[in-house]
Structure formats: structure tokens, C-alpha cells
């Protein structure tokens, strides 16, 4: 079984995703002889995270429109250690598929009660939890009649730069997966499925919200490209 970062992560040179054309470097990546470093300074003070920053449904006067959900899970490193104190930041479209961003021109309604951003620090066991609404699918101009499957953007920031990860979480059973080049840019189908959350009856709160479970695995603290087994 391969755990190489090369086979897990998408290549930047991926023509099906049109925006790569002028942005993916043309020269091969160089291999660093030494591992990437770690911060000795505090990542950030815990008090900068508000008590409700993890709840995207309680940032305004009224409830946002949409299907209320929770997304929870744990962050591990490749060596099975829980990653405590990691900063997780999320952002997403609203239930109609529109981001609260000036550049989003999709003619779907904005929701005055939904900004679409949240953050938290992982607990001692690597656990995190967000409350939000399920984002809508939306069109984009990558290819004719292109639509992004519903997704939540996730950023995981730890003291070790080798662990830095920005990714997207998807919802099970989405009919849009097959035509989405971003989802399909992950070469290994098993790895691709690790971007899809699992609906969980246990995490679903009766008469209140649907629960989704999604664990995240980042590189080991000492990871270097040379340490990856099964490199291709």
C-alpha cells in the first residue's frame, strides 16, 4: 500500500482543470535534503478563537436558510497520533450555492444570515466540530455546463509546515462527482473517497440536524518527501 504524498495528492499539472494552465509550474519540483521545519513560537493564542466561531449558524440575528448539519471528526498524523491544537478554518457557499464574496457572480441569492466561514482549534484527542448548513452546488466556467459538487473548504494549520493541508470535504452520494475535475484530480480512487464525509446516525441530532463524520490525516511531523514509503 502506498502512502506517498505524490500518489495521494493531485498533480498541479492537470489540464481538465482549466485554471492550472497558467499557474502550475512547468519545472519539476526539487527535493529538499532536510525536513521542513516546525514553529517554536505559539501557533496562535487560544483566546483569538471565539466560543461560537465553530457555529456558522449563529453568526447573525436569525438562522440561515438551509439544511442544518454538523461536521465533526478528528485530525491525525500519518503515524496515528491525534493532532491537538491544530487550527481548522472552513469556508463554504450558502444553501443556494453562493459565496458571500464580492467576486462570486452566480445569480443565486445571498443569505443575510450566513457568512460561510468558521474556525476552531482541535481538542487534545484531535477532535473538531462545526455546525453549519449544507452548501449548495454551483456552476463554474471550467467547461460547458460545469457544476461543482457541494463542498466545504477545510484548512488545517499545525506547528509543522510539512503537515499543512488545504482541501475540500464533499457529501456522500453526490451525483456531480463524475464531471468535477477538481474532485477527480486526486489520482487514486480510494484517496478520492477520503474527501467524502460519512453520514452518521449517531451524530445526527433528533429533530435538529444531520450529522456528518470526517476524519483528516496530515503528514507525520517529521515527514520529508524522502520518508514516504512506496514513492512512485
Amino acid at each position, binding site marked *: 500500500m502506498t502512502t506517498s504524498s505524490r500518489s495521494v*495528492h493531485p498533480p498541479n499539472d492537470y489540464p481538465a482543470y482549466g485554471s492550472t494552465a497558467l499557474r502550475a509550474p512547468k519545472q519539476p519540483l526539487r527535493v529538499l535534503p532536510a525536513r521542513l521545519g516546525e514553529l517554536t513560537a*505559539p501557533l496562535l493564542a487560544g483566546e483569538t478563537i471565539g466560543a461560537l466561531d465553530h457555529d456558522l449558524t449563529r453568526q447573525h440575528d436569525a438562522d440561515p436558510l438551509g439544511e442544518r448539519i454538523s461536521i465533526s471528526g478528528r485530525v491525525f498524523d500519518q503515524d496515528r497520533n491525534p493532532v491537538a491544537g491544530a487550527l481548522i478554518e472552513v469556508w463554504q457557499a450558502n444553501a443556494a450555492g453562493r459565496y458571500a464574496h464580492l467576486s462570486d457572480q452566480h445569480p443565486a441569492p445571498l443569505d443575510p444570515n450566513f457568512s460561510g466561514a468558521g474556525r476552531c482549534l482541535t481538542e487534545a484527542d484531535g477532535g473538531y466540530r462545526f455546525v453549519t448548513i449544507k452548501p449548495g452546488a454551483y456552476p463554474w466556467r471550467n467547461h460547458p455546463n460545469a457544476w461543482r459538487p457541494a463542498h466545504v473548504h477545510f484548512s488545517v494549520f499545525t506547528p509543522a509546515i510539512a503537515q499543512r493541508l488545504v482541501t475540500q470535504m464533499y457529501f456522500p452520494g453526490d451525483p456531480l462527482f463524475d464531471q468535477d475535475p477538481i474532485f477527480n484530480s486526486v489520482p487514486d480512487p480510494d484517496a478520492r473517497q477520503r474527501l467524502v464525509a460519512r453520514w452518521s446516525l449517531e451524530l445526527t441530532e433528533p429533530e435538529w440536524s444531520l450529522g456528518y463524520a470526517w476524519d483528516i490525516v496530515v503528514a507525520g511531523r517529521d515527514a520529508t518527501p524522502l520518508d514516504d514509503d512506496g514513492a512512485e
Partner: protein
Amino acid sequence: MTLPLTPSQTVGPFFRIGLSTTIGSHVVHEGMPGAVRISGQVFDGAGEPVPDALIETWQPEGAGRCATDDEGHFAIVTIKPAQDGGATGAPHLDVSVFARGLLTRLVTRVYFPDEHAANGADPVLRTLSPDECSTLVAVREEGGLRFDIHLQGARETVFFDR
């Protein structure tokens, strides 16, 4: 048995709503002794500025983050990292570049122009041609240092395997 990694996906065009403020562009206060402003522009393969990139810097003293503006400009205020010798070589910042159109982050380094001897002995710079090295060493300019990032083209920045 190790756990399989979660794959990377692009940061997309709208990351500012989620990633703008938690980590700031000032690793240190501007007035701190030794504080240096490192600014630059990000360019694509057509030589156009990239207005939707996110730059993150990483060094033992702390992390910085800055999104590019409409002209592709970013700026980080930090200090030169303490040189610890050994395998890590000359003082440098590790840099991650995220953007729409990048499915995984790019990793590069900023070296300092006043570290001529250390740069010459650096185990990474020593493996690169002079032209390649020049993409990684910041240049002095009014008010600080300049470090442009070219994603493609004749002056393509040297990027490292993550």
C-alpha cells in the same frame, strides 16, 4: 501501518472569506528591532499578476499569511530567522503558495541578500544554478526586501517537493 493521507484540493477563488484574518501578515511588530518587510508580486505564466493567491511564511519564530491584492501584491513583516547551522543552512523563510488553479500548495523559500557567505554554503542553494538561486534570494528595495513569485515562465521560481 501508517494512516493514508487526506488529499489536497485547491484553495479556490473565495478563500478570503475563511482564511484572511486568523493568522496575520505581521510575524513581528513593524517597530521591532530587526523587523523587515518582505513584499512582492505573484505572476502567472502570461506574466499577469495573480490577484487571488495566498502566501504563507514559516520560520521558527512564527507564521505569516497574506492574500495578494488586485495587482498580485503581498507583504509580510518579520525578522530574519536565527541561523542554527547544520542541515538547515542559511537563514530563510519557508513559503507556501496557494491559489485557484493550484491543486496542491507550492513550497518555496526566501533567502536573504545580506547572507552572501551563508547562502553560498547553503545545501539547497548549492544544488541550484545561479539563475535558479536568484529566484529564491530576496532583493533589497526601498523599505525592505522584494521577493516576487513567478509560477511559470523564464523566471519561474524554484519550488520544492512538499
